């Protein structure tokens, strides 16, 4: 009896299944073909062509302006005229003035721009649709060279690596603390990370506004953040299943915190590099100092889960590098090929990674609080972590 029932329910992929799967797709193709040929009874012909040209970035060289543009409209378009500060200028386009959908091109103009002045550029397509880009402060765009490369490296070093390592140097001192204080520190780390995660998300949303609409910046944030969160969660569960040792588990969490902070710093490096390129520069030693103070907490966060263990020096150094060094990479990318698309993607990954790490820390804290209830410790820890960043931010900004 049982056998008789189970027999027909056996799932097998047959030719018949394939046909059944294909029928709706074939029908869909038919509907689309019908719609395209007849218009489906709707008059959808646009009286004016819809075009969209995104100026992704600009490069200023002596007597030359280069615009990197991307066609983010539904159809191909042709660049026909370039106006700089109310003057029609001769120009060339490589590879071709006609840019296919989602294709990119570079517009070159020989223009004697002046250091420190502002320029407004309007690009007209052959359908007379204008697209504007502003150069708020003109100055020569840094070109990849040994010097600028080293400069960007130094920025990343200061922004990421040094503060993270300074935080890690607290390790010996913090090891002397009691269990309750360690739990407090873990909670504070969670608080720090929640603050950083929100900040990263806000920044991702901000940059997403600059991404050409065809690339759907907000959707990109969702994909990057959710995928990273679930991937890290899966890795963590697999590790727990393999080792089971709580020490290893805590070390894994510390490593993941380092990865999350690393992505965060990558995003910040991108922002700094890009800011340098477009001339959004204000200067002050005070701000660098403040910056190091604020980011030292990132190092603290990395070591919090492993305070009661004995991780090797090499392991600690590795975690410091993972947390801090991406700032250097970010500064290179942002400095040489600023791309809002990449920035959003990295910031989204950072958001997902950071919130996953908060989740991991929460699990560790839960283990501690299972042994000994300390609700106020967790509350005050998380709040302390968040307030720490908020207050240092308040002082610096």
């Amino acid at each position, binding site marked *: 009896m049982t056998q008789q029932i189970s027999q027909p329910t056996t799932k097998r992929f047959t030719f018949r299944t394939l046909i059944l799967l294909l029928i709706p797709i074939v029908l869909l193709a038919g509907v689309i073909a019908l719609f395209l040929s007849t218009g489906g009874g709707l008059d959808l012909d646009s009286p004016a062509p819809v075009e969209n040209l995104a100026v992704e970035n600009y490069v200023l060289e002596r007597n030359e302006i280069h615009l990197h543009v991307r066609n983010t409209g539904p159809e191909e378009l042709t660049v026909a005229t370039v106006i700089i500060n109310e003057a029609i200028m001769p120009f060339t386009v490589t590879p071709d003035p006609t840019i296919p959908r989602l294709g990119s091109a570079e517009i070159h103009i020989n223009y004697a721009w002046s250091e420190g002045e502002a320029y407004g550029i309007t690009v007209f397509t052959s359908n007379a649709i204008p697209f504007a880009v502003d150069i708020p402060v003109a*100055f020569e765009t840094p070109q990849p060279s040994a010097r600028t490369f*080293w400069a960007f490296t130094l920025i990343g070093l200061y922004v990421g690596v040094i503060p993270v390592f300074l935080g890690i140097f607290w390790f010996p001192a913090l090891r002397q603390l009691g269990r309750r204080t360690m739990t407090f520190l873990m909670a504070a780390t969670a608080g720090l990370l929640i603050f950083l995660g929100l900040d990263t998300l806000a920044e991702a949303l*901000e940059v997403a506004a600059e991404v050409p609409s065809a690339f759907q910046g907000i959707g990109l944030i969702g994909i990057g953040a959710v995928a990273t969160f679930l991937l890290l969660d899966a890795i963590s569960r697999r590790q727990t299943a393999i080792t089971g040792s709580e020490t290893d588990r805590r070390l894994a969490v510390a490593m993941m915190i380092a990865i999350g902070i690393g992505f965060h710093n990558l995003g910040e490096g991108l922002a700094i590099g890009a800011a340098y390129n477009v001339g959004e520069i204000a200067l002050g030693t005070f*701000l660098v100092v403040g910056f190091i103070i604020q980011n030292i907490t990132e190092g603290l966060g990395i070591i919090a889960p492993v305070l009661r263990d004995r991780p090797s020096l090499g392991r600690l150094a590795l975690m410091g590098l993972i947390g801090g060094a991406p700032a250097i990479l970010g500064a290179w990318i942002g400095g040489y090929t600023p791309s809002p698309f990449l920035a959003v993607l990295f910031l989204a990954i950072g958001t997902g990674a950071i919130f996953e790490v908060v989740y991991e820390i929460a699990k560790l804290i839960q283990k501690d609080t299972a042994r000994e209830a300390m609700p106020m410790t967790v509350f005050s820890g998380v709040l302390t972590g968040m307030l720490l960043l908020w207050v240092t*931010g308040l002082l610096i900004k």
Partner: protein
Amino acid sequence: MKPLSRRDFLKVGGLAFLGTAGATALTQNNQNHRTEEPHKVHSSHVMQQGDHGDLPGTVGEVDHEKNGFDPTEILTDFDYGEVSTLPNGQTLREYRIVALNKNIEVLPGIEFPAWTYNGRIPGPTIRATEGDRIRIQFSNGSNHPHSIHFHGFHPGEMDGVPGTGPGGLVEPGGSFTYEFDAEPFGLHLYHCHVFPLARHIAKGLYGAFIVDPKEGRPAVDREMVMVMNGIDIDFDDANDFYAVNGIPFHYQNHPIQIRVGETIRIYLVNILEFDLLNSFHLHANFFHYYPTGTSLVPSEFTDTIIQGQAQRGILEFSYKYPGMYMFHAHVTEFAELGWNGMFEVMA
């Protein structure tokens, strides 16, 4: 004010580093290097040396054949009409003008969906002698109502303004014959007067109307007509390009060739919409100026004149030396957006 985000702070902080700790790493020979004191930034406003980049202008050529007109030809294209004599002995000049929608390539690669008289911008230069009978058979071949409003003396029903009779607004497919005596002598203009007026003019419905005095003007070697216009290519009620006789930069790309000592007379009309003023400046020379051309005595000897919309005047000059000489709007913004030309004066 937008509060500073952590990212703003990072930009600031990161670059502070560039200005201080990174100073050695940054190029010392980089003339664009910014130092940490903001006031020094301002002292570095230096024009780029050496090659000063390209001059404003266009690359390539618009398709004059497809446009149906060439500004070089418009310059000396005076339409005296079909001439006959009326029973009373008066000279009759008959013209045919058709309003047409037409795409005009105004810059290489950019077409302007224009409204035109006889398919060109500006429309034909109507020329008659004071006292002649003018008869203009106007038909509207476009899909908007249009009219022709002439400046000069004429009866109200010939004024081409909505509300003055059938000639005030000619429906698509319709026609009307404007008829009046050409007076007073001078340099005038005509344009569509259907509302919205600014749009009907900006789209290209205008032309010059020259009434010569009975005894004529003193003879000159060359006469030219120049109608100063603007092109609002994206219909935002602001001009994007400026021109003389329709096509921006045409006489920069194709200098007007004249000879040393030749006497030149220019009939200059300003029909520029949206902008308050237009102007004409002649390089390395002075000209006699006859505002509206209604007097045979010049009012001014100058090298620059200003005209508001529909103002016009006659310029007379000759060149002493051979060479290339610019003429352009001394509203220099207009010059760099297309209203710039050259006289090539040959020995």
